[in-house]
C-alpha cells in the first residue's frame, strides 16, 4: 500500500474533455504531475493551455473525465475547496489587488489558508503570526522592500513575483504557474526563473509557458499540447528533438519571430 501511495501523483487528469460547441479545447487528456515535479505544459496559441488550468482549478467544468489531487477525486469540487486541498495557481495576466500593498496581498492568502479570513472580532493587524509569515515569504522572494507599497506602483516584473507570492501564501502542494514570465521584459525574466528555481522542492510545479528559454531552464518534463490533445510528453532533450514538436510549435515560432 505504501508503495502505491508513494506513486500516487500530486495531480492527475484522466480522459479530460471539454468542448465549446464544435471547438474541443480539451480532448481526452491524460496527464500526471508527479510529487515535487518541475513540469512544463507548452503548445501554440489556442492549444488549450489556459483552459487546462481553468479545468484543473475548477473555473471550468469538464464535459467528461476525472481530475485527482493527491489521489482524491476533485472533479466536482468548487474552486475554493480545491484551494483548501492544496491546489494554487497564478494568472497569465496579473490578477492583483491594485490599490492594496504587497504585504496585504500575502496576508489575505495566508488568512484564507488558515481559515481566519472570515473573522470579525479581531483586527487584521492583530494576527501578528500571519503578518510575520507573509513578510518572511516576501523576503524569500526578495521583494520585502516593497512590502508597504501598493502593487500598482511596482514594475511589471515585480508584480509577477507578487502573483507567485500570493499563491505561495496558500502553502500549496501543487502550484500552477500560468505563463509566469508573460509581459516581463526579457532583462527581468531572470528574476522569475530564480524564484521558480528556489521554490520548495516538495511543491509540484506545473509551468504553462511560451518562453522556451524559461521552459528548458526549469522543466524536467515537458508536455506538448496541440488543439486540446497531448501530442507528446518527455524530458526536454527528447521534446527539442521531436520532429512533430518542431513542426507545430518550434517551427511555428521560427516563422513568426
Amino acid at each position: 500500500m505504501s508503495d502505491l501511495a508513494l506513486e500516487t501523483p500530486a495531480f492527475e487528469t484522466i480522459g479530460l474533455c471539454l468542448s465549446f460547441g464544435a471547438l474541443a479545447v480539451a480532448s481526452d487528456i491524460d496527464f500526471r504531475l508527479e510529487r515535487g515535479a518541475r513540469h512544463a505544459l507548452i503548445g501554440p496559441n489556442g492549444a488549450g493551455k489556459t483552459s487546462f488550468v481553468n479545468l484543473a482549478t475548477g473555473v471550468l467544468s469538464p464535459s467528461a473525465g476525472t481530475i485527482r489531487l493527491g489521489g482524491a477525486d476533485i472533479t466536482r469540487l468548487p474552486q475554493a475547496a480545491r484551494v483548501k486541498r492544496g491546489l494554487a495557481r497564478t494568472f497569465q495576466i496579473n490578477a492583483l489587488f491594485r490599490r492594496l500593498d504587497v504585504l496585504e496581498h500575502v496576508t489575505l492568502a495566508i488568512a484564507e489558508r488558515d481559515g481566519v479570513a472570515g473573522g470579525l472580532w479581531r483586527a487584521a493587524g492583530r494576527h501578528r503570526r500571519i503578518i510575520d509569515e507573509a513578510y518572511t515569504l516576501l523576503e524569500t522572494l526578495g521583494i520585502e522592500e516593497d512590502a508597504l507599497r501598493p502593487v500598482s506602483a511596482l514594475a511589471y516584473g515585480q508584480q509577477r513575483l507578487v502573483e507567485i507570492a500570493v499563491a505561495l501564501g496558500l502553502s500549496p502542494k501543487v502550484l500552477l504557474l500560468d505563463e509566469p514570465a508573460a509581459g516581463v521584459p526579457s532583462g527581468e525574466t531572470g528574476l522569475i526563473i530564480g524564484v521558480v528555481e528556489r521554490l520548495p522542492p516538495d511543491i509540484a510545479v506545473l509551468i504553462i509557458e511560451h518562453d522556451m528559454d524559461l521552459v528548458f531552464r526549469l522543466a524536467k518534463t515537458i508536455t506538448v499540447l496541440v488543439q486540446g490533445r497531448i501530442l507528446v510528453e518527455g524530458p526536454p532533450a527528447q521534446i527539442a528533438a521531436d520532429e512533430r514538436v518542431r513542426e507545430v510549435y518550434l517551427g511555428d515560432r521560427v516563422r513568426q519571430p
Partner: protein
Amino acid sequence: MTVKDLDRARSDRNGAIEAFARRHRFRPLEAVPWVAALAAAFVFPGYLPLGAQILATILFVMSADLVVGYAGIVTLGHAAFFGTGAYTAGILAAHGWGEPLSGLVAAAAVSALIGFLSGLVILRTTGLALLMQTLVVAAMLLETANKASSITGGDDGLQGVDVWPIFGVFHFDMFGRVAYGYCLGVLLVGWLVTRQIVHSPFGRSLTGMRENVRRMHAIGAPVFRRRLVVYTISAALAGVSGGLIAQTTQFVGLTSLSLERSGNALIMLTIGGVGRLYGAFIGVPLYMIAQDQFAEIEPVYWYFWIGLLMVAVVMFARGGIIGLVERFRR
C-alpha cells in the same frame, strides 16, 4: 505617517510589520467628527432637528459604503433597508410600542432579514444585472408599502408615531436636543461596528473582492457567503438609520423606500469619498446643509448645483473630498 517615516519603516522588517499591524488603531484624527458634532450642537442650537437628520443619514450612507465601497457591490436599492427599518420602528411606535431602543433593534432585525433573503437571490449576479435587481427589490417593497395602506398609511405616510422617552427618562423635546444626542449615540455605536468590520480579516477580504474577485476565488475565499454576510450587516445598519429617522421625525413616508433616497446616498458617498469609512461623515453634512440652504434661495434649481458638484467630483476628485485630502497629504 510622513514619507520619511514610511521610508524608515520600509527599511527594516520590524518597522514594516509594525506599521502594517498598526493600521487598525485609533488615530487622533478620528475624533474630529465627534468633536465637530458636539461643537455644532452648541454653536447652532437652532439647527438640532436638521443635525439629527444628518447624523442618522450618515449611518445610512456609511452602511451603503460598506457594501459599495468595501465589498464592491453596486446597489441602487439601499433605501429598501432604510425604509424597512423606518416602517418597522414607525409601525411599532404607532401601534403602542414606542420604546425607542428596542424599536431600533426590531428595525435592524427586520432589515437584516430582508437583506439576507434578497441577498440570497441577487448576490449571485454582478455588475448591471445586480444593479437592476437591487432596484427591483426596493421597488417591490415600495409598492408593497403603497398597497398595504391600512398598516403603512400608504401615500399619506404613517401617522401617529408615538415614541417613548429614551431609557424612560429623556423625553424627545421640540428643540431636538434629545433627538440629536440619541442619533449621535446610535451613530457612534454604528460607526464602531463598521470600523471593526472594515479592519477585521473579513473586512480586508471584502476589499480584496472589490479589487479583484477572480483572485479571491483563486485563493479559496467563499466569495458569495462573505458578500451575503456583509449585505446583511449593512442592511441592518441601514435599518437602524431608518428607525432613527422614523422615531425622531415621528413620521414615515413612502419616500423612505424610494430610488431617490438610494441615489442620494450614493451621491453623498461619492462627494465624501467611497470606500474610506469617513466619506459619509463629509458627504452627508455637506449635501444636507447645502440642500437646506439652497432650498431657501433656489428651491427649483437646487439639483442643478448638486449635479454640477458631482461632475466636478467625478472629473477632478475621484476619491471624493477625502481622496483630495489624501492626495495633498502625500
